[in-house]
């Protein structure tokens, strides 16, 4: 014989069957997870430096170099905790599973009358009819509420056993299996999936996206074209909808067209494209208006960055130098603006700010000419999140399993009922008792209800 107790493998197995280990692991996971909610995760060094100052930055960086506290949910030690929990739940479930199967797949469920008789919660009453009469009226009622019933005849009466929902003992395995599904699905996603983003100006298309974690380029098998981007607002100024009209182009042929909005992505060949952000590109050409102070005349001229425009009436030369999507003026964000230089005839240079939102802004300067942007064609770019996660269906299966499993485990139980009837004088003595694998109080109530029903039965 092999000495089971001493083999190392067996000791490891025993270690992992312990529910104490589960409790320790779950509490450790709960406690350590807090770290990553206090220290912001996956920031850049300069962000951390900015936030914590030099001393604490160095201090935390030191910890980060060993414990990855700046990306703790992907750190070696957090992954080890998850791995230990997985082994724990697998080993523990396997360890008990065969015993549970034996209990469930039994041809003739055993009943031990003694155990029912010993129960404190049993109910007893007497009835004037004979056991034979009672058997005939009790049996249909009991078998209505229970899947399995069996009557054992006794010398002075009978014993009616009933039970249901034996299989619900499997519920807890479904719950534990669901944990495996979710962790496995997460693993599949992190190995075979990616998460990237791309900005596409209206009218343009691309195959190349940038991965979020590594900032590396990733080439897709198809092109994404942004036909159009639209943003709409509520009266309050809050954004109402972001909408990108996308076309997927494969081998130069368009294969799918779809408008995506937040919460309604485009999915193609396992790759998901989400509306995630947007921005504006500098307009390529704008129409400027020049209003002369002396004559009051307004002149309109087309202009572009670094293309000087001669202003009529010899008012000078204006050149757009730059475009800002959000310009600042005296500490305020005044939105999109052009920045240009006005060179007067005498050779004086003046910097000029032209916010798109405030056309009369330049009046404040009180120059010889008021410059404004009369019209411009707006080009948006759409910011798309592009992801692939082949593990997501495994995770979702886990979601369904845990809901079903928890429901079974929490709200259903293996219930057994025993009704014993014995002759006593010219009366019958009836005992009703019940046991359940869960929710003992519920079963007690049920026994009470059943015994009242039986006592009243005609």
């Amino acid at each position: 014989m092999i000495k089971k107790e001493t083999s190392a493998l067996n000791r490891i197995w025993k270690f992992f069957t312990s529910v104490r280990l589960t409790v320790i692991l779950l509490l450790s996971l709960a406690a350590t997870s807090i770290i990553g909610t206090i220290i912001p995760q996956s920031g850049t060094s300069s962000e951390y430096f900015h936030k914590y100052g030099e001393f604490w930055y160095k201090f935390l960086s030191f910890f980060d170099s060993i414990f990855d506290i700046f990306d703790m949910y992907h750190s070696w030690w957090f992954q080890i905790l998850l791995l230990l929990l997985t082994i724990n739940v697998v080993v523990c479930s396997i360890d008990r599973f065969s015993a549970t199967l034996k209990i469930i797949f039994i041809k003739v469920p055993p009943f031990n009358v003694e155990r029912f008789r010993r129960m404190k919660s049993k109910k007893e009453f007497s009835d004037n009819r004979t056991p034979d009469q009672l058997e005939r009226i009790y049996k249909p009622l009991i078998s209505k509420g229970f899947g399995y019933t069996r009557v054992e005849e006794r010398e002075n009466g009978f014993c009616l056993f009933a039970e249901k929902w034996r299989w619900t003992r499997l519920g807890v395995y479904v719950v534990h299996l669901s944990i495996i599904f979710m962790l496995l699905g997460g693993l599949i996603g992190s190995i075979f999936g990616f998460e990237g983003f791309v900005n596409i100006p209206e009218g343009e298309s691309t195959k190349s996206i940038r991965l979020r974690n590594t900032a590396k380029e990733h080439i897709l098998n198809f092109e994404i074209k942004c036909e159009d981007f639209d943003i709409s607002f509520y009266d309050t100024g809050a954004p109402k909808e972001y909408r990108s009209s996308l076309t997927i182009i494969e081998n130069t042929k368009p294969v799918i067209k779809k408008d995506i909005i937040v919460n309604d992505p485009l999915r193609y060949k396992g790759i998901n494209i989400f509306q995630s952000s947007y921005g504006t590109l500098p307009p390529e050409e704008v129409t400027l208006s020049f209003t002369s102070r002396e004559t009051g005349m307004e002149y309109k001229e087309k202009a572009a960055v670094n293309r000087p425009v001669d202003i009529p009436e010899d008012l000078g030369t204006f050149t757009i130098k730059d475009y800002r999507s959000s310009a600042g003026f005296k500490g305020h964000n005044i939105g999109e603006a052009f920045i240009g230089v006005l060179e007067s005839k005498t050779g004086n240079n003046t910097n000029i700010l032209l916010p798109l939102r405030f056309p009369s802004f330049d009046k404040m300067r009180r120059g010889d000419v008021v410059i404004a942007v009369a019209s411009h064609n707006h080009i948006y770019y759409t910011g798309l999140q592009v992801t692939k996660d082949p593990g997501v269906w495994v995770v979702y299966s886990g979601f369904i399993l845990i809901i079903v499993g928890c429901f079974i485990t929490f709200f259903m139980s293996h219930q057994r009922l025993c009704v014993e009837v014995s002759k006593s004088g010219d009366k019958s003595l009836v005992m009703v008792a019940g046991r359940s694998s869960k929710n003992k109080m519920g079963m007690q109530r049920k026994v009470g209800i059943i015994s009242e029903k039986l006592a009243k039965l005609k």
Partner: protein
Amino acid sequence: MNSSNILSVTTFVYGLSAFLYILSWVFKKQAPGKLALWTTVFGLAGNTAGIILRWIESYQLGIGHAPLSNLYESLVFFSWTIVVIYLFVEKKYKNRTIGAFVAPLAFFAIAYASLSPNISDRIQPLIPALKSNWLIAHVITCFIGYAAFAIAFGISWMYLLKKKDKEGKSQLLDRFPSANMLEELTHQMVMFGFLFLSVGIITGAVWANSAWGRYWGWDPKETWSLITWFVYATLLHAKMMRGWHGKRIAYLSIIGFAAVLFTYFGVNLLPGLHSYGAMGQ
């Protein structure tokens, strides 16, 4: 009368019901107990009417959406679920002393919503990220879970008080259900809450996946809901460990509810480098 008025009135009705429950417990009187029950039912009617009316009002404003989109609305719904579950427990277990420990929680939730100057009761339009049916499923399930945990929290305190008084001298504690029953009730509530918290986290994950393309991102709110889930999973397993009955389960249930509160309110206090969701809040 608009929904905010009705909900303000409801706040006072819930305050009265909490007061009556405590009165009936302390003075062992049936009359205030009965009155407390009917006050609560009346408050629930107001609470329900307030929620429905707010829903209708949002449609009248042309921005129709279920009233589950901000802190005010979620708190109002939170106290609604606490009261509904509590009334169910009172009916089933026929003991009103629990009301003295639970009705105040429903009152605090709605009072915080109605009275805090930091919480706006304006009906706001939905930002794009919140326009999803998953959001509704997510908020409803989470708050049913939170409400069950809130009730477990109240009952756990009762359990600890009851256990403190070993000789059973205190008249006040005599009116509590038995310690066994309190323990069993805590367990029932935690199981119920655990199922709904799980569904809440899941619907949140599915929603995140449909809005941002990832079902889990370890952002502080998500992480704290997971921490809460770990605490209650611990509780469910601790019951199977020898020596972990009774008090320690009650402590875990109290810690669990503290985690719930932190998930709900505390997360906003945490520092962050990024704002949540690229086009988010």
